[in-house]
């Protein structure tokens, strides 16, 4: 694979930007330009990779990531199903859309106590992640299902296809690109939901580490938890970006 000159230059500048950012992080930390609460990058990495703390981080990370994953799956499923329902049953469309946007507008910190009552503290993060993902997928799938062109619809009508066949063979494939983009943008939403949920007294997870280390002035621990969450979201986002590229090449 050969890169064009311009493309190679872009990649070089991008890497340069990231390296400069990390160097600035290290420099500010080393010289304590932002006070004691900004640790150098190397300190955070040393803290993160210390074998003694591995069980702590493993426990928190697996708790949070499983909540993120479950919430993501549930939310995606729910969003796609409700979008399909709204698409098929015309009279319900407006009401479902309004309900979804009202639920999305309820601030997560206000939903958390509700879920603590309805479910439990352990599942609150997952529930908020589900709702966050649900809205992104509902919007993406809804606009995707309307993406098939009128010409294609006319063709299907001419051949006497029924509603179900049209959904399966025309509208669903046409909805895929928007759906996959939605899945990509739902990744950070899912992480935010799970972490905010854990701020409300979960007994484990990265969100718990963040809040307790913020209050107890354990700066490297605080930054480490944030770095793990950011890295997780970034890799999932990157993976969805690759899938998105494939789907766009195949279905558009």
């Amino acid at each position, binding site marked *: 694979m050969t890169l064009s000159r311009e493309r190679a230059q872009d990649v070089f500048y991008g890497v340069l930007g990231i390296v400069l950012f990390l160097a600035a992080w290290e420099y500010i930390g080393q010289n304590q330009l932002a006070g004691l609460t900004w640790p150098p990058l190397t300190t955070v990495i040393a803290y993160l990779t210390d074998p003694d703390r591995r069980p702590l981080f493993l426990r928190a990370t697996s708790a949070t990531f499983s909540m993120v994953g479950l919430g993501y799956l549930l939310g995606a499923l729910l969003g796609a199903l409700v979008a399909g329902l709204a698409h098929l049953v015309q009279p319900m469309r407006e009401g479902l859309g309004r309900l979804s946007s009202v639920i999305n507008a309820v601030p997560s910190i206000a939903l958390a106590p509700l879920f603590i009552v309805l479910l439990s503290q352990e599942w609150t993060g997952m529930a908020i992640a589900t709702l966050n993902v649900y809205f992104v997928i509902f919007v993406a799938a809804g606009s995707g299902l309307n993406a098939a062109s009128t010409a294609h619809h006319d063709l299907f009508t001419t051949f006497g296809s029924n509603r179900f066949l049209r959904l399966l063979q025309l509208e669903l494939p046409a909805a895929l690109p928007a759906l996959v983009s939605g899945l990509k943008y739902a990744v950070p939403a899912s992480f935010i939901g799970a972490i905010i949920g854990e701020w409300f007294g979960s007994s484990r997870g990265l969100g718990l580490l963040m809040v307790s280390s*913020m209050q107890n002035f354990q700066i490297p621990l605080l930054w480490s938890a944030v770095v793990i969450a950011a890295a997780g979201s970034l890799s999932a986002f990157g993976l969805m970006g690759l899938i998105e590229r494939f789907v766009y090449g195949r279905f558009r």
Partner: protein
Amino acid sequence: MTSLINVLRTGISRYWGVILVLGIWQLWVSVTGVNAIVMPRPLDVLRDLVGNPSVYLHNGGQTLGLAVAGLAAGMALGTLIAAVAWFSRLLSGMLVPLAMIFSSIPVVALIPVIARILGYNLTTVFAIIVIISFFPAFVFTSAGLRALPRGSEDLFHVLGANKMSKFLHLVLPAAVPNWMIALRLAAPSAILSAMVAEFLMGQSGLGYLFRQSAGDFDTERAFGTSVVATMISVISFTLSLQAERRVSARWR
């Protein structure tokens, strides 16, 4: 009389989902008889909202004011840096990947870190909203600065325009529709992050009011806070959506 029925009919066709959820909630609380401390009735929440307007107005106004000011500052900063990056290929090559990284990680999770660095006060809440509004503004404006109408660049070239006049008369106007998308995306998250920040460390505002009333087991007040926050969020989303539609209808 007929107009009243019409209003009622459109209202129900749009909001039947919301009404249904509220109805089920009221019914569930009445039938199971859960203690009002755990879960208040919708009607009691409404009574508290109507009975104590000054508390809600004062705190809601503060949160809204902070969110709007932070949003404006964040959007201005994002636009400014996107414009500077447009003039320099090196700078944009360095900044765009960083901005992409930051828009794919859960920025809300950075709130504990920023709070620890800047201290627990209103300036920090403001800074958090600025940071969170900055990324969508930068990403979408930079994309818009590159999405020029086909052929327009040749015209400017033929007419011998210099880079500055090309920027002012072609590139900047071309970015306006994208800028409106950024505003629509950033507005609800500005309000959400204002509330989360106030919840974690504020001494006033909706987020603080929520934490305080939830801590005092004043659940009606806590749910009333959520209702006010939801209304602010819905209104800001609707306004920015309308502004976006109006602008893109005029611009395209």
